[in-house]
């Protein structure tokens, strides 16, 4: 399954720009991005509800971009589930099978199999409005899997569920999808959901794919400021390269008291000496005493402190009004290590930093 140079414009506005993508057999692939980034349009082109302006969708080497949705071997689970309100759970699941002119006995067998898969056997004769949100989602999943699609499309799968149910359903959904072994493309704006469910994530912004990688890659090695910012929280330091060697880099940052030292070479900004350094909040440490190091520390004042139980979030004010976020695990019951307005030193290890281009 491959997308080549796929573009879509609406009245001159380019919603999706020249996307190249490959899906691997049996993986769960997440398209992650804010609203209006083109992720839904991309999904609707895959399902056939939108015609691409340009480019092709190759499935087994065949371009299916212009094939109408009812002739594609792909099935979609809609954000609102789109269960037929006038049909029972059974009839909803059987709907797609009936279109294939399957024998009644085969349809019944397949419906039973699907009901069992999603643990909804007792609800077979109910109508959708007699089901809870989570149950509806199971039926919607069963319906979209009933035809053994070659590609399962999920549109904001947890969008219609309340927060508590989401966590449970995310894992259960992954369980069922992996059990069936279907290749799955999902669209979501929730990074936590993407990271929990997907094997690979593509971060989209303004119609383009910025980075594709495993959840770990995208979090630890973002390739640009947008991705670093979009996935989790991050502290950015703007600076200039003071010393660049194949084995290490030293970056001067005006807001920090010591330069940043990175223990590997960077092959990025050729000639561009202005760079950003991204450090995740949980990879920074605080101390009351000045670190005995030449590099990688700075001085600041605790401006705000949020105690969240398992960890605390500190907002540190640096010179030039820059704020830095630090999270610390509360592994000691009695002590409150730092107080508001306290002057502290923040420091980190050389491998915590990611250098990003402007």
């Amino acid at each position: 399954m491959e997308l080549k140079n796929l573009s879509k414009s609406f009245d001159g506005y380019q919603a999706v720009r020249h996307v190249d993508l490959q899906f691997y057999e049996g993986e769960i692939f997440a398209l992650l991005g804010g609203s209006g980034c083109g992720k839904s349009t991309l999904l609707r082109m895959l399902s056939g509800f939108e015609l691409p302006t340009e480019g092709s969708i190759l499935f087994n080497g065949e371009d299916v971009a212009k094939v109408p949705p009812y002739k594609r071997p792909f099935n979609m689970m809609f954000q609102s589930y789109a269960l037929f309100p006038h049909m029972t759970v059974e009839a909803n699941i059987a709907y797609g099978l009936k279109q294939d002119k399957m024998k009644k006995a085969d349809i019944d067998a397949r419906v039973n199999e699907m009901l069992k898969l999603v643990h909804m056997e007792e609800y077979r004769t109910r109508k959708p409005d007699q089901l809870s949100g989570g149950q509806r989602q199971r039926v919607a999943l069963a319906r979209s899997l009933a035809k053994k699609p070659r590609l399962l499309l999920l549109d904001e799968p947890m969008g219609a569920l309340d927060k508590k149910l989401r966590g449970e359903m995310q894992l259960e959904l992954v369980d069922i999808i992996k059990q069936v072994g279907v290749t799955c493309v999902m669209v979501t704006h929730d990074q936590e959901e993407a990271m929990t469910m997907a094997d690979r994530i593509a971060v989209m912004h303004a119609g383009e794919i910025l980075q594709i990688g495993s959840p770990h890659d995208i979090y630890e090695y973002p390739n640009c400021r947008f991705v670093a910012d979009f996935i989790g929280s991050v502290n950015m330091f703007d600076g200039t390269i003071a010393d660049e060697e194949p084995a290490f880099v030293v970056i001067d940052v005006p807001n920090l008291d010591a330069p940043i030292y990175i223990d590997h070479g960077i092959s990025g900004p050729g000639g561009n000496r202005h760079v950003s350094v991204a450090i995740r909040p949980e990879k920074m440490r605080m101390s009351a005493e000045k670190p005995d190091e030449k590099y990688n520390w700075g001085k600041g004042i605790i401006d705000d402190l949020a105690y969240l139980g398992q960890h605390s979030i500190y907002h540190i004010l640096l010179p030039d009004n820059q704020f830095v976020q630090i999270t610390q695990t509360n592994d000691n019951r009695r002590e409150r290590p730092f107080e508001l307005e306290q002057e502290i030193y923040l420091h980190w290890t050389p491998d915590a930093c990611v250098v990003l281009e402007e």
Partner: protein
Amino acid sequence: MKALTPTWYKLRQSAWLKPRNGVIAIPYLWLLLFFLVPFIIVLKISFAEAQIAIPPYTDLITYANDQLSINLNLGNFVWLFNDDLYFSAYLSSIRIALVSTLLCLLIGYPMALAISRAPASSRNVLLLLVILPSWTSFLIRIYAWIGILKPNGYINNALMAMGIIDTPIVMLHTDFAVYVGIVYAYLPFMILPLYANMMKLDHSLVEASSDLGASPVTTLFKVILPLTKAGIIAGCMLVFIPAVGEFVIPELLGGPETLMIGKILWEEFFNNRDWPVASAVAIIMLALLILPIMWFDRYQNKQMEQQ
């Protein structure tokens, strides 16, 4: 000391005088005044006997010689059942109304679907085009059809100019013209409830059907039609009920063989001045129409219960 509740306060607390009931009372009062009272008057006349006087019917209750007598004359109804004319007029009215309703549905359903699927910007314009003709007088619009359908009217002239026909087709004063008139006049009443119903239809259901392998035709019959059932029924009621009693269209466009109960009613009232028989005709027509209305009401209640 026991606190005394003022009378006016008790009055205000009583269910009848709550503001909410006041709001409901106005339409009920309206119906009472302009539907129930006339209905009772018509019912009363239908049991009277015709006479040449003003008013042209006898009183039901007379008091003479210390005797209060109530004379219920069932002769009018017996007359209706004995004369074939009325029975075939009812039947013919219902047939014409049914066929017209079906035609309205066949024409109106695709139109309503197209309007509801049109881009939001053009939807209002399209809807306006449906309603716009109603801004002209109903009578004038039906008269206009005479000019279109008559032997030297626009259609015949155009067909003859193109050489398709030599002699004019007789269209005016036939049942065909009545169908044209009714379908034309009542089409908006079919389209509007259908459109309102279709706008509520979640488009993702249509997409889901397509996604699951259903062709557009299958989607129409398996998903869109069942889910717009309420709109279909409402539209059909709005066309069928007035069409049964339609008078102007068969009078102007229909021929001598067009038998509709509205025409009979007119003739009994104004040509024969037989008010009691005319009232009996009206009462029976109402009884016939109440059946589908009651059925629709029950269907709606069932729908409400499900939600």
